[in-house]
């Protein structure tokens, strides 16, 4: 057990992120009580949290609530309640957990959650979002706006795509003005976009620290811890302060040659969301091999910044649109995801790819067999494919998953021995 907890990064940022998230939940509780500040339900993927700053409104992320529940082993009850209502066994369990909680009045912290001022479906790639938010609106009676973000069909969005999203963002502004009676503060919005761009720069630098060997943090498991502040506080001064502190702390660690294990043995790239109901168990399966994730696609759901994109206060609406359209993994096309992973493997010097198929999420998982084919056959990268779920505890086959992970690392180890020092050097 001692080795297991050693894998987790626990610096002062860990504590700080907890406080920030607690503070957020407290403000939501306050909003539930007083109606102030206004709250807007949004999806994590390609979220436009900056826009809310222009109203002093705060985001309400049902996904964050759902994952919190799952980590605390509380997701099954609401899932069953939703199934009782007619949701299918094969519907995304995030939705079921969220709706189930709403019906049963369960919240992740025990505090209250407000009825949102606006249910803003920032439809970014995931078609389930549209259904989810239609349902939230129908059950809460809150107004709904579906912000239709064209899927990225080519490499870059067209001008028509950008114009379309900008026009809708402006419609959202009008709608929130109408709903709250508050005037949109453009300067505050622009300032928020500026904070975002700073945060993104810091976050991107953190991601690049994982190129160090050993990596000072795990870019899958630890990155998830940092994702909360990234989505809630990205457009705020607190966000900038938090990520500056995080960067400093991790940089120091990297430069001192401190990794998360005494000796880092394997470097992997992880594709797909984690099994939140078995988060710790799953992490331990990697820890027992001293394997670190140097990059992950899941940590780019809310935004993809390590390849250079930043929000731009000079054209705030356009850059928010650009972020939603092209700079998050969910709205990018599937082949762009292959390419993202390929770059991670090459530039972050990974030994292999772990593909975690989650049954809830077709956005992530439909076609991952082809992805495996691409990496193993076309690129010759060792790839492990495992299946479970991100929210529903009924789909985690612990012994089988562990066996497969063990077998994968054994074969990587074997390959290192037979290939002499070539691969080993890389991973040191």
């Amino acid at each position: 057990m001692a080795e297991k907890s050693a894998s987790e990064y626990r610096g002062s940022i860990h504590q700080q992120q907890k406080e920030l998230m607690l503070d957020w939940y407290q403000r939501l509780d306050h909003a539930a009580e007083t109606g102030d500040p206004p709250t807007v339900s949004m999806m994590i993927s390609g979220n436009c949290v900056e826009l809310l700053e222009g109203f002093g409104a705060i985001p309400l992320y049902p996904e964050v609530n759902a994952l919190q529940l799952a980590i605390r082993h509380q997701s099954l009850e609401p899932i069953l309640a939703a199934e009782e209502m007619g949701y299918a066994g094969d519907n995304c369990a995030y939705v079921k957990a969220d709706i189930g909680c709403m019906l049963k009045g369960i919240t992740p912290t025990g505090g209250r959650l407000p009825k949102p001022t606006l249910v803003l479906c920032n439809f970014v790639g995931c078609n389930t979002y549209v259904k989810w938010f239609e349902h939230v609106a129908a059950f809460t009676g809150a107004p709904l706006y579906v912000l239709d973000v064209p899927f990225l069909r080519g490499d870059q969005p067209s001008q028509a795509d950008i114009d379309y999203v900008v026009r809708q963002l402006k419609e959202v502004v009008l709608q929130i003005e109408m709903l709250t009676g508050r005037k949109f503060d453009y300067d505050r919005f622009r300032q928020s976009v500026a904070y975002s761009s700073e945060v993104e720069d810091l976050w991107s630098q953190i991601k690049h620290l994982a190129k160090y060997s050993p990596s000072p943090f795990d870019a899958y498991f630890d990155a998830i811890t940092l994702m909360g502040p990234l989505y809630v506080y990205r457009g705020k001064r607190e966000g900038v302060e938090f990520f500056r502190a995080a960067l400093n702390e991790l940089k120091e660690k990297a430069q001192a040659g401190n990794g998360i294990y005494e000796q880092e043995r394997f470097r992997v790239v992880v594709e797909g969301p984690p099994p939140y109901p078995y988060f710790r168990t799953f992490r331990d399966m990697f820890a027992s091999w001293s394997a670190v994730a140097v990059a992950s696609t899941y940590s780019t759901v809310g935004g993809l910044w390590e390849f250079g994109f930043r929000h731009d206060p000079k054209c705030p609406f356009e850059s928010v649109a650009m972020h939603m359209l092209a700079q998050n993994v969910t709205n990018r096309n599937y082949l762009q995801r292959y390419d993202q992973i390929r770059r991670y493997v090459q530039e972050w010097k990974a030994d292999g790819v772990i593909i975690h198929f989650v049954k809830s999420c077709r956005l992530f998982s439909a076609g991952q067999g082809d992805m495996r084919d691409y990496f193993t056959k076309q690129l010759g990268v060792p790839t492990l494919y495992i299946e479970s779920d991100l929210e529903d505890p009924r789909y985690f086959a612990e012994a089988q998953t562990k066996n497969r992970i063990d077998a994968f690392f054994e074969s990587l180890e074997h390959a290192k021995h037979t290939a002499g020092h070539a691969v080993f050097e890389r991973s040191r």
Partner: protein
Amino acid sequence: MKEFERTFDSLYEGMQDLSFAGVRNWKELHPGAKAVAFFPVYAPMELVHAAGMLPVLLSGAGDRLDIQHADSRFGSFICSIIKTTMEMAMTGHLEPFDGLLFSSICDSARNLCFVVKRNYPQMYVDFLHLPHSTSESSVDFLDAEYRRIITELERLGGAPVRQAALNRSIELYNEQRRLVRCLYDLRAQSPHLLRAWESYVLIRSGNLMPVEAHIEVLKQALDYLPTRPGKKRDAIRVVIEGAFCEQPPLELIRLLENAGCDIVEDDLAIAQRWFTEDVPLTGDPVRALAESYVQRSVYSSVRHDFSKPRWEGLAEKVRGTRAEAVIFLIAKFCEPAYFDFVLFKKKVDEMGLPHLLLEFEEKLFTFDRLRTEVETFVESLVFD
């Protein structure tokens, strides 16, 4: 009458034919011309038709193709049509097509688009974003999106797409849609003259043939059917909802009818009934198509409509056809249909209507369990 039955048989064969012989023949007759296929649900066939190509709307492979390769690309919890379409690609069945288009219906279909694209780089594979919004900006967007597709088609075909050709195509497809609406009206009013499985064959086979030929088929049917001998029967009037993409086996539709249901409305192979009105022939044709999609589409599980919730659409359908029950026919792992079921069911309950939920797979071939469920349901209504 004989003639109609003969036509009908050949339509049925054509619909089942995975070698796409009709498409191959068409290409032989039109040397150098291209055929472009769409994955369901809706497809702007006019754009392809106006480019001088043969547009075809695919519907999976039913039980006529064993999945031997596609499972390795699309694993568990994915609906069958994704796998059969992939299998068709991997086994050369899609070879008659020069292009394949997908649209924003669900995440599985979208990812399939890009998997096909990677594996078949010689084919023109594209993704069409159909808006999930009904605002004016959505019309502008879709207008631009259609123009992008037209440019791609021009590149593929090597010739410009002219406005006159687009107008002519819209006119033809309007005619097809009008005739299909007539067919549905006839069926809803006189289910004894036209069974649902028959109208289904009449319509679905049209997805695979030139629209001009399909129009003739529909006209022939509409001429003949009112004179067809047929006895009214005691049956329950039902609406079928949920099978808009992956298609149930024909046998299942017959089973429902034989069990005592008159299927007076459905959303099977719904593309030919997608618009509530004709696409206007005044003004710019591309804009007219875009505007029709955004503002005059039927309600559907694969698009969001601000102006009217989907469940109200279902309620209107039920009222309009004086249906007595709703049967939800949902493809296994079809997430859009699963989600909508919850709010549809709520609405149907509020209306005091009975409903039945049936799950199917296109490749289903034993029906005993489903038959029992349907018979029990029908009995419970008859003896109520």
